[in-house]
Every structure is written in structure tokens, then in C-alpha cells.
């Protein structure tokens, strides 16, 4: 059981770092925003593994839900500017 949790933690950490690299280095702006939302979503699963369900709920609802939509609202109003 403990080994399984450890493997899951390593997998989540690797996926988070990969998604963060996509968010910073990727060429397309919408994909970068989605990757940042994915980092938050994976982080909320990690919080659950670290026995903090309160923080996991907050991160899933606010960090990965609402923040991503804020970015898309603004990005939708700035057509043409995102390739600078």
C-alpha cells in the first residue's frame, strides 16, 4: 500500500513538472494556460495524498477551475496580441 502511494506521488510529481515546463516553454498561449490549470489539478490530487482534503478541494475549485477561466476571459479579448 505504501509502495503504491509512493509510486503515485512520484508519478504526480513528474507529471506536474512536465505540465509546468509546457506552461512556461510552450509556444501556444491557450495550451500554456491549460497546462497551468493541469498543474493545479495534479497538485490537488497530491494534496489529497498528503492527507489535506480541505486544501485539495480549495485548489481544485479555485486554483484549477476559476483561475483558468479568468485567463481565458482575458485571452479571448486580446486576439492578435498573444504572439508577441
Amino acid at each position, binding site marked *: 500500500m505504501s509502495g503504491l502511494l509512493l509510486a503515485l506521488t512520484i508519478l504526480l510529481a513528474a507529471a506536474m513538472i512536465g505540465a509546468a515546463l509546457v506552461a512556461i516553454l510552450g509556444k501556444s498561449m491557450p495550451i500554456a494556460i491549460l497546462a497551468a490549470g493541469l498543474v493545479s489539478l495534479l497538485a490537488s490530487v497530491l494534496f489529497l495524498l498528503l492527507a489535506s482534503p480541505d486544501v485539495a*478541494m480549495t485548489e481544485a*475549485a*479555485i486554483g484549477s477551475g476559476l483561475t483558468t*477561466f479568468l485567463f481565458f476571459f482575458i485571452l479571448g*479579448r486580446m486576439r492578435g496580441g498573444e504572439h508577441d
Partner: protein
Amino acid sequence: MIRKFAALLILAGIAAIFTGLLFTYEPDAELNTTARYYAERTAADIGAANIVTAIVVTYRGLDTLGEVTVLFLTAAIVGLVLARGRRRKEDRHLAPVGELLATGSRFLAPLIILLGVYVFVNGHLTPGGGFQGGAIIASGVLLILLADPCRCLSHRIIDTVESVSGLFYVGIALLGIVLAGGFLDSHLLPRGELGDLFSAGAIPLIYSLIGLKVGAEFSSILAHLSETEEL
């Protein structure tokens, strides 16, 4: 090029500090004094099953009041910054919303808001609470905003909910000085049985008000951002 080099140099310094922290870190074997106090006294003093809620609402209640104030200021500044020179809604020509989308969103939005209410009413028993419930309510409002962009969301309702819940929050906090031990004391109401819905004194009431206020603030931020005109 020099800019990137300087950035990498700074990052190398920070990384060295982080590595030092990571390799000298030793997890505690026992709870420290503060955490031990909260773990041992919450059930007897406050009566809330969720210790995080007891800390957020009662032990560190003043911090939460400050946090809600910061959120209110954020919502106000976002409104102020985006308010100038906004076009009227009627100028936008959008295709009418399809029947399926309209009915579906009208069916789902109240259910999502109900889930948010459930989360913050049970904040002292289960994981969750005012902030999570508020965010869920705001996502219900987001569904309404996305499904029907032509409909102007009533800012008056959002503002009223926000002000009234904020006023009641501060009012209950002040009542604590008169009727109980101090500002934001939860012993206004009887402590009740650990694990019941109506227990933990005023915590369910305070957390519900926080949930309504946070939900209204997030909804106001989302509505302002979605009403910005296309540049």
C-alpha cells in the same frame, strides 16, 4: 542573452538554498505545541469535527475577516479597472443560444449552487467550507455566464448578497463581544453534540455567511471580466 544569463544565475542561487533546505529537513515526529493545543482542545472548546475549520473560523478568525476584506478589495479594484469605457450589451450581435444549451444550463446551475450551499453548511463536519462552497457557487454563476452571454447578469443582486452577508458577518463577530468571550467567539450558540449539523456554536452560521460573501465576490470578478469588450 545577458538577461537570460542573469536570470539563470539568480535561479542557481535560489536552487542552492532550496537544496540545502531539502536535505536538512527532518519531519517532526510529534505535533508542535500549537498544533497539539488545537488537536486536543478543539472537540471540547469549539465542538467542530473539522479542526481546520475551527482554526480558520474561530482560533484565527480575525485572519479570515482580513482575507475576506482583501477579496472584497480585489473585486472592487477589478471592477474599477475594467469599468471605464464599457460598451452597452445591446451592441453585441451574437447568435441566439440553442434550446439544448439553454435548458441544460437552467437545469444544472441551481444544482451546482445547491452543492455549494451543502459544502459550506457542512464545513464544520466534513472537508470543505465557506471558501470552497463560495468557489462552487461562483462556478454555477460561470455556467450561466458562459451559456448565455447576451443576458446581463444582475450586478445589483450580487452586490446586495455580498454587502448583506458581510454586514451580518461583522455583526455576529461584534455580538460575540457582548454575549460571549470576545470578537468572533463562536460560543454565541450552544456547542451541541460533536458531529451534529447544528453544533459547534456559531461556526456553521459564520461559515455560511463567508461562503455567500466569497461566492458573490468571485461571481462579481468573473462577471466583470466576462463583460470586458473585445479589443
